[in-house]
């Protein structure tokens, strides 16, 4: 894809996903809130979808993030990927050259957290050694009475996977910007680092 050129704009593909293989048929439980989060980020907090509609393919959302203290911005192309197992394979083809990962689980579902490691394997296999920075997001922090995953445990696992951990509530619009802002910053830093490396290369 060729995008229109805005100056000093760094572009990334960000994959938003989680794992929901459930034997139960209730799709409501399967939904961890990826689409809800993506939409809120995309719309600067004006959109929260109360009614669950399952993502059946991938949805592409674009968001431009300004990097503080620079003239640079990062365009995030957010691929909201389906979480349902039967749909994942088709979606994987559309992940393309993904640059960033936003892995979302439901804080009220231990299972959705446990499945994060399957997602990581999948993404790693897809990226074939390319370094893909990412964040782990525990969503639905508003449902504190139903919480099944403790922050410290999620935090530890995230760290072991090289992911930055955030908790959000797409419903209360709490902290929703944080994970993707963190990703944008990371990608910007990566760009600067690579630019410096290239600057110091000798001719072939």
């Amino acid at each position, binding site marked *: *894809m*060729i*995008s229109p*050129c*805005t*100056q*000093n*704009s*760094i*572009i*990334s*593909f960000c994959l938003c996903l989680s794992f929901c293989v459930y034997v139960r048929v209730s799709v409501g439980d399967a939904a961890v809130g990826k689409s809800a989060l993506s939409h809120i980020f995309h719309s600067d907090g004006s959109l929260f979808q109360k009614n669950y509609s399952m993502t059946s393919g991938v949805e592409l959302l674009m968001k431009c993030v300004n990097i503080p203290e620079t003239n640079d911005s990062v*365009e995030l*192309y957010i691929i909201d990927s389906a979480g349902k197992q039967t749909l994942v394979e088709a979606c994987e083809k559309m992940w393309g*050259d993904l*640059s960033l990962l936003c892995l979302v689980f439901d804080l009220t579902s231990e299972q959705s957290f446990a499945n994060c490691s399957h997602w990581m394997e999948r993404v790693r296999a897809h990226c074939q050694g*390319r370094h893909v920075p990412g964040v782990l997001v525990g969503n639905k922090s508003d449902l504190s009475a139903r919480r099944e995953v403790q922050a410290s445990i999620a935090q530890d696992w995230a760290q072991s996977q090289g992911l930055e951990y955030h908790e959000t509530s797409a419903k209360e619009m709490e902290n929703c910007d944080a994970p993707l802002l963190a990703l944008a910053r990371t*990608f910007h830093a*990566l*760009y600067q680092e*690579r*630019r410096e490396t*290239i600057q110091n*290369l*000798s*001719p*072939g």
Partner: protein
Amino acid sequence: MIDSSLSSSGAKVVVATCGDENHPPENITDGNTKTFWMSTGMFPQEFIIRFAEPTKISAVTVDSCNVKHLKIEKNTSQNASQFEPVTEKEFEHTEGHLQSNAISLNGSSATHLRFIITSGYDHFVSVHRVSVQN
């Protein structure tokens, strides 16, 4: 003969996908491998070089970093459109120094050459010099 600076012969980059204003596409044709154009993310990336007049080209040499797959297209029209494929090449990954690849174009005549980088070894790729052998 190797034309070390394409721009001195009137050739210039007329189109390039996203870039950093500190590393403009003119750096591709200035003959200097110290200066470069750098992509800022995603693939494909492309740039188009226009020659001052229709030019017979036996080969091009591309000095670059992190480029994995490159396609070259050309046309003989005044406009940068309606290209036909010429060739493509898989570059080897290099560490610590630039990739330098000579690509034969079999003496095709062209007014525009279009370079399409379809994949890279990293999120970002750079092109430091394109030189043309007539």
